[in-house]
């Protein structure tokens, strides 16, 4: 068994800890840092409830060793907006993109990365993009609408910003 010193930047803040090699990133986030917005669903790399952005890329944090994330930047749902709602959060609010909310943090982080790579995704591209995140309530219909709405909000704010 080995113990390791890691420093991980989470939502812009550096966190240094001594961790066991077997500590998973999701446990680092929830238990070491107390950020419980990142959920644990299936524990089998299937559901995507634990999705976080690792250096900007959405990954399942139940399948990343904390020690292997040393030196990386992590964004969780708590770090999505800066004191206000991120356009993706706004879209999910307006279009009722959630019912129980369990999948929502992961769903929104995946959507954020999707919109950064593709600012105007069509329905099939959204469904493809979120296919690693499971929702058992909505049937995905309102989630797709929420992501479309987020794309509009981002476009509007960009146009306003440019004007």
């Amino acid at each position, binding site marked *: *068994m*080995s113990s*390791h010193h890691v420093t991980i930047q989470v939502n812009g803040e550096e966190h240094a800890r001594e961790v*066991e*090699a*077997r*500590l*998973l990133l999701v*446990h680092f986030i929830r238990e070491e840092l107390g950020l419980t917005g990142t959920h644990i669903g299936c*524990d*089998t*790399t*299937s559901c*995507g409830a634990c*999705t976080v952005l690792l250096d900007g*890329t*959405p*990954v*399942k944090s139940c*399948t*990343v*060793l904390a*020690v*292997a994330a040393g030196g990386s930047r992590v964004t969780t749902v708590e770090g999505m907006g800066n004191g206000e709602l991120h356009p993706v959060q706004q879209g999910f609010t307006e279009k009722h993109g959630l019912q129980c909310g369990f999948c929502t943090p992961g769903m929104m982080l*995946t959507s954020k990365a999707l919109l950064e790579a593709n600012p105007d995704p069509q329905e099939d591209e959204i469904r*493809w*993009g*979120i*296919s*690693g*995140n499971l929702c058992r309530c909505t049937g995905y219909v309102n989630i797709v609408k929420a992501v479309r709405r987020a794309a509009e909000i981002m476009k509007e704010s960009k146009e306003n910003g440019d004007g």
Partner: protein
Amino acid sequence: MIPPQFDYHVPESLADASRLLLANPEAKLLAGGHSLIPMMRFRLAEPSALVDLRKIPGLAGIGEAEGCLRIGAMTRESELEKSELVQGRYPLLADTARVIGDPLVRNLATVGGNVAHADPGNDHPATMLAYRASFVGRSFPDRRSGTLLEQRHELPLQAEDRTIGADDFFTGPFSTCLKPGEILIEIRIPAPEAGSGGAYEKFERKVGDYAVAAVAVQLRLEGGRIAEAGVALTNVGLTPIRASAAEAALIGSDGGEAALDEAAGAAAAAAEPHEDHRGSVEYKRAVVRTLTFRAASRAVARAKEAPA
């Protein structure tokens, strides 16, 4: 679930990684971790140590050189999906990359890991068989015997590369012919000649599941006839299976329905499925038959569209 305890090493050179593997016979290499870490959580794998490859330079990248597509073992699956070279010239590989795990898994999972893990349910192995791909294993044999002990650590170990054909690579479930301390560093797929086409057909219960069955077909048309064909099957045996009789049924034919039917029947006969929660033996054979027909049809269509 939390994995059992293990030691973690993150070497910065392949020589060090190889040394760590030889020093810890129960150690495993960690690439993307998206097969290994789930297995460790379930106690299906309990390595004494992990040797993480992430800090070793030069192991990721996609490019054509010397008549081959060369893929670094640490290349992420998502990089295959984004690669215009792969999308444009290697449709069988592009098809395969799109159906491995799910988009989040593909952001970390690696091509080398998918191959070297040698799970019969993994998708790349059949594709590599159909492509007649080869794998480069690097080891660092110790040729310093006879040297004075105090001089030994001064001498750098010399890398020795071995190229292994896909036909020889997969020796059993989760087993390859890589030797202790030997590390898969590169995958080489022969560059397609004029008139080539390929396709991968996977039938899965849901996104991210292993295949009920999947079929890889790669072929080349010459003067309206199939001159070369590779057919291989995923998750219907203890290893990926190359369906040689299906290849023979395609070669020399015009790629019409009758030849495709014969190839599909031969592929179904070559499958060695086991009954499980994904279906009965008969059902899986029927799936192989249908998928072989579909994959071969698409491969022929793509070969016809390919620049002559």
